[in-house]
């Protein structure tokens, strides 16, 4: 196979604490056929079946205009858990190139979002792209005449099927997105999700300023429910200018780990509440709602904001997790996790609850691998993917991600698996927070650095940062210019991949199952739309 010859030309980067950088000159530029063959070798299925790689995944694939030639430069990042590295390579498209590049999405469905984004921005279509539709109708799209109103929904001309359209304004306090169901009676045949209503142009805003604090707060606003996940990923980029990346301070890194786990714990409990609400189980709903309040109020006592805004800053922080605050967090969360355990026992022993969850809206392990699911959405289907084990610094020794083994537990990535996922992951988060607080208690005498907004990023480089937010793997990537300022910024929220999981989960289900399945994934609209 041709790929074997060029695969060793990819630049292998071992990220330190999730952050890696490659000088632009060192990014290997491959001819497109070789690039395509390598991508197939890395990400494709060997037999043409469902055996897509569990360890390898494409975390970023984007194009930027090349001012010198007028063409496009492409960059791809493939993370490999088994090797603990990230492979980087690129290819270029000449301005005068005739015809279109061959689409890889047919063989590697994961790539459809990346290819669609490139097509939307630059009008460069991929030959044979099976789902050539706009991704988010960004303001700088190539075809300005296309708008949200002309989204080409998939339709079937049939007398037996009918369509149900929901959104973008939904019957609740949630973000906008449009859902179109193709139904056979009550049974859903197909669901198509059209997003883009939340597009705020955040990537251009980050690249358009050199004000570090402004960049940091923009990072916190990518998704207001994943403030810490995105904040930490962005801090990694902003700290890339220090030699060998910024590994200066264990106290800060440990604090970030604690904060990230607190966010995960709060959201998992909140999602349990939302799930209970949608299956009309009032006891679980109100109990979890109250528990979530305790966790986010503990966060407020630490940094003054219930969502952790203001906590993560480059090269330091403003709100130290003092012994007193750590003790308060520990005692609050010990109370919370005890009560949450009881709620979990209650849920799993109540037949009416189980009947609503078992076998409903399943997604198989094969499907999850095929669409490139990440985070809890993947782990609940038995796919072991967690950026925490390979790339991040964590205070807990021997961290092992929670994976709900769908086959062994006779589930099939159904609603029950998603609930169990949350119940178990909350326990791990709690253990990590306690371990982190202990570790910090032994470092109270160490210095505490203040944020530094004056330092440049690594110059002339491709910088990337990976963090495991509560929805899954977050990837930020930046191209920097000679002065160490951001020239182009890319944000990849886990929802980008996981929305397809939601669409697959409701096939064959009833429309009334959709709200429950939607809550069980709890994906981000603004994280997708940016």
């Amino acid at each position, binding site marked *: 196979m041709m790929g074997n010859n060029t695969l060793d030309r990819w630049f292998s980067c071992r990220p330190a604490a999730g952050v890696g950088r490659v000088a632009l000159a060192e990014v290997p530029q491959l001819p497109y056929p070789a690039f395509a063959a390598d991508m197939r070798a890395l990400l494709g299925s060997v037999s043409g079946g469902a055996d897509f790689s569990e360890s390898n995944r494409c975390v970023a694939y984007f194009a930027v205009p090349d001012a010198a030639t007028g063409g496009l430069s492409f960059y791809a990042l493939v993370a490999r858990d088994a090797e603990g590295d990230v492979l980087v390579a690129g290819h270029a498209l000449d301005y005068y190139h005739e015809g279109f590049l061959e689409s890889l999405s047919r063989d590697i469905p994961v790539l459809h979002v990346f290819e669609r984004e490139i097509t939307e921005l630059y009008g460069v279509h991929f030959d044979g792209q099976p789902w050539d539709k706009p991704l988010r109708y960004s303001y700088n799209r190539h075809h300005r005449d296309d708008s949200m109103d002309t989204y080409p929904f998939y339709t079937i001309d049939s007398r037996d099927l009918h369509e149900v359209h929901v959104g973008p304004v939904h019957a609740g306090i949630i973000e906008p997105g449009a859902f179109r169901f193709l139904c056979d009676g009550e049974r859903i045949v197909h669901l198509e999700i059209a997003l883009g209503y939340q597009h705020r142009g955040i990537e251009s805003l980050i690249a358009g300023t050199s004000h570090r604090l402004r960049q940091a707060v923009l990072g916190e606003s990518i998704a207001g429910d994943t403030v810490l996940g995105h904040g930490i990923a962005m801090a990694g980029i902003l700290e890339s200018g220090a030699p060998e990346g910024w590994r200066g301070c264990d106290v800060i890194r440990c604090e970030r780990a604690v904060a990230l786990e607190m966010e995960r714990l709060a959201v998992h409990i909140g999602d349990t509440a939302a799930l209970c609400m949608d299956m009309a189980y009032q006891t679980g709903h109100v109990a979890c709602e*109250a528990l979530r309040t305790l966790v986010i109020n503990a966060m407020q006592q630490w940094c003054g904001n219930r969502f952790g805004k203001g906590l993560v800053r480059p090269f330091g922080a403003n709100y130290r997790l003092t012994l007193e605050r750590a003790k308060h967090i520990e005692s609050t969360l010990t109370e919370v996790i005890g009560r949450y355990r009881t709620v979990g026992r209650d849920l799993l022993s109540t037949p009416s609850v189980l009947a609503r969850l078992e076998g409903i809206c399943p997604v198989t392990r094969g499907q999850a691998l095929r669409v490139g699911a990440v985070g809890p959405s993947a782990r609940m289907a038995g796919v072991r993917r967690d950026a925490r084990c390979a790339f991040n610094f964590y205070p807990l020794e021997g961290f092992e991600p929670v994976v709900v083994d769908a086959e062994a537990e006779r589930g099939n990535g159904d609603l029950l698996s998603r609930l169990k996922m949350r119940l178990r992951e909350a326990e791990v988060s709690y253990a990590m927070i306690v371990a982190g607080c202990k570790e910090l208690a032994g470092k109270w005498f160490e210095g505490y650095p203040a944020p530094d907004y004056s330092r440049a990023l690594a110059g002339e480089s491709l910088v990337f940062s990976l963090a495991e937010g509560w929805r899954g793997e977050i990837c930020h990537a930046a191209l920097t210019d000679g002065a160490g300022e951001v020239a182009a910024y890319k944000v990849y929220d886990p929802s980008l991949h996981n929305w397809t999981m939601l669409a697959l989960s409701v096939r064959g289900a009833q429309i009334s199952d959709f709200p429950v399945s939607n809550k069980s994934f709890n994906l981000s609209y603004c994280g997708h739309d940016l």
Partner: protein
Amino acid sequence: MLLTSIKVLMQHGTQYIRHLDRVKLCDEFRGRPVLRSAGLTAAAGAELCGLCPTGAISFGPGLTLDMGKCLFCGECAVRFPEQVRFTNEYRLASPTREGLVVTEGQAAGEWNFDYSAVRPEIGRMFRRSLHLREVSAGGDNSCEMELGAAGNVNFDMGRYGIEFTASPRHADGVVVTGPVTANMARELESTWQAVPEPKVLIAVGVDAISGGLFADSPAVNREFFEVHKPDLYVPGNPAHPMTFITGVRALIGCRTGVPAAAEDRETGE
């Protein structure tokens, strides 16, 4: 089974905050800022103004801070502790845009809610029941979650007859979060048009009030707010549920601290 359910309920206990009028948030919470320009040189003043990521602070003469632009990130208070201090005062809402601008010499506990700026029919129509329709137009989901929390078991604003409703046809007003993205502009307008008169418009969070970080983004279209003027501005990033609840109660004419009987006489009911 049943015993576990009972245990859950026992542990749950009573969760609602009994007296919402007397809530005090923790000292770390960043609410109404207090400003002092004494001793601030012109150069340091320029640095302070330049520090703010949304340009909410201006200097000369005297310091002012526009809470409609403020992200409450607290960076100014960390770097200039002599000049800016954030108190834990969460009553920040205002019926006018100018009411969000904090000047020097304003006391921390002072909430200048300008009751005279509120349209009289709002109190008359909605004092006992206000049903709102929420539209997120580019909000980052933190304001949305806090609005959801305002109705949860802890804050329970439903006790005052303030609730969120599923359809604009059932609503007395619209709550907007987010900077209003171009892709959402038309949907926001049609939701507003679908609400019957008389109706109220409430802007929640820095994004909705001024555009916040996204004010200059080409992906944002704020024509909606050029045509329709909000009846209430609720600042914050995100706005705390208490900020929202106290603001809306003030809007519909429930002056906190004034006994209900006196209130009734005042409005002639």
